[in-house]
């Protein structure tokens, strides 16, 4: 099996390829997959993601699974590759984490909007929760190329669910680790260490990727400090490419108007202060009453 391009329309900014799996290795609780993806690396940016399909066409699972791009390399011995970090959560990711080198998997990417980079060399703090750290190292490199001092904060439930502590030390000026159970770094949440770190570094931007609760508290902390948070959200997605409307969330635009926007298209990176966090509760997100086209009647 070698990689095969299925769609790559000029100027579309996205390709669909039947990728070849080059490697699949364990990293803590996760699997690190390297995929041969011609045409993808050249056009990808940190914060964008790829959508993989499950199985070979006879699987009962039809919907794509989305993963942050961990790294890309446009050229190499095996050609263009894309790397992702996958947690085996449900049946689809269980199947994807079992892929073996040489097998084929359909990949679409790069998808969504990546992290906006500051035009000035401001200090930045990059916060990753669990596998959410996957896209941050590549981001850190790009920020440092722009002379932004970079701090990385990695948090997880336990040590095995941290991803990239060693890599973080290589690409950041400072690294802080937290775990819920104290099995590595400071016991507690990333939100516990952020205020001090912002104060100490004079950070102008927070970048985050991880669970919704983490992004929400990061956004609140950023607001408290009068700085910007750019957060990569994780909303359940069926297609990843903008055609199913399942991945929406309430986000305000620059005029303050809230719409239910597709996080796969307008996100996954949003400004933390634009997301209507209060709409999220207990795994549900209700449409805010002031959103465009919200149901008229109060139930």
């Amino acid at each position, binding site marked *: 099996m070698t990689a095969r391009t299925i769609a790559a329309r000029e100027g579309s900014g996205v390709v669909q390829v039947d990728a070849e799996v080059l490697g699949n290795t364990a990293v803590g609780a996760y699997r690190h997959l390297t995929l041969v993806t011609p045409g993808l690396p050249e056009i990808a940016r940190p914060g964008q993601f790829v959508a993989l399909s499950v199985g070979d066409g006879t699987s009962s699972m039809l*919907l794509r699974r989305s993963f942050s791009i961990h790294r890309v390399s446009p050229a190499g011995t095996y050609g263009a590759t894309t790397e992702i970090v996958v947690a085996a959560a449900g049946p689809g990711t269980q199947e994807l984490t079992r892929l073996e080198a040489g097998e084929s998997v359909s990949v679409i990417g790069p998808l969504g909007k990546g992290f906006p980079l500051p035009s000035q060399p401001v200090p930045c703090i990059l916060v990753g929760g669990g596998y959410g750290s996957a896209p941050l190292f590549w981001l850190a490199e790009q920020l440092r190329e722009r002379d932004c001092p970079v701090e990385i904060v990695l948090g997880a439930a336990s040590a095995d669910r941290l991803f990239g502590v060693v890599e973080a030390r290589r690409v950041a000026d400072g690294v802080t680790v937290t775990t819920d159970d104290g099995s590595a770094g400071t016991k507690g949440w990333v939100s516990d260490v952020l205020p001090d770190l912002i104060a100490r570094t004079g950070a102008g931007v927070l970048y985050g990727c991880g669970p919704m609760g983490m992004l929400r508290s990061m956004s609140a902390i950023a607001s408290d400090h009068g700085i910007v948070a750019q957060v990569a959200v994780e909303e359940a997605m069926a297609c990843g*490419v903008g055609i199913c409307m399942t991945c929406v969330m309430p986000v305000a635009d620059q005029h303050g108007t809230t719409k239910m926007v597709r996080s796969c298209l307008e996100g996954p990176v949003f400004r933390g202060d634009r997301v209507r966090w209060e709409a999220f509760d207990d*795994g549900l997100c209700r449409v805010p009453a002031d959103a465009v*086209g*919200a149901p008229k009647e109060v139930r």
Partner: protein
Amino acid sequence: MTALSPPSAVDMSVDLAGVRLPNPMMTASGCAANGREMHRFIDIAQLGAFVTKSVKAQPVSGRGTPRMAETPSGMLNSIGLQGPGVQAFVEEDLAWLHSIGARVVVSIAGSTASEFATVARTIVRSRYASAVAAIEVNISCPNVANRGLVFACDPASSHKVMTLVREEVPRGLPMLAKLSPDVTDIVGIADTVLKAGAHGLTMINTTLGVAIDVDRLRPHLVAATGGLSGPAIRPMAVRAVWQVAGAMRAGRIKTAPIVGVGGVRHGRDALELIAAGASAIQVGTAAFNDPTAPERVGRELETLIAERGFTRLSEVTGIAHERFVP
């Protein structure tokens, strides 16, 4: 459509109630947004037609989330007809579809029968009306005037919608009624909408389903119920087309073209619907798996038809009725 097409020249064109389409392949309403996103993968102007997301008169936020649940060989959705409203639809979406030369089937929806008519009027009077190949009337949506009962589940409501919309639609522009499978007698509903003036039928919309979140032990969807789609329901779609085409062939109801939709993922799935009586094919959920599916399925279908020795798609439409010996 591409270099992979078979050498054989099958005439894949379709006569959709007077409108000629170069091939039978369409997107399914709500499964391709309004075109731009899918156009990154395939040239949607090459499709037989592009079917838009059902549009209502005013902007609609749709439901909260979760709006979808994966199910075996299918999915549930409760998008709730999210859309920008017909004005913005015309100015932004229809204008763009017009600009790229797509043949557009505009899917319209409403909470009342008169809302359908308003939406239809706005579309057909818009400056981009020349791009419109047909109007698809999505009567599989809830009727606020009737306790939210879906129009398509009630013959009287279906009749009223089609009658009002027909008054807005100019001669020569086909009006397709999109039916729900969630009825005791789909032939009866088909009969009703054809009598009310529908020029063709699109079958089927999703069937109602529920998934339970087994960790939280509550409905997975914020709306509890959702529409089931995907290959799982294909046998229901083929059955609906089979029954309605059978009734047409037996002269029990008026004859009209049928657009088959429901669970098409591969060319052979499309061939099932065609052989059961469909003239054209829509690809919905399968596009979430493969956004090139509407185009790919068309290629596969053409190859299958050529391999079976036919030279025209129309020769295959409904052929299973001829070959069936009860």
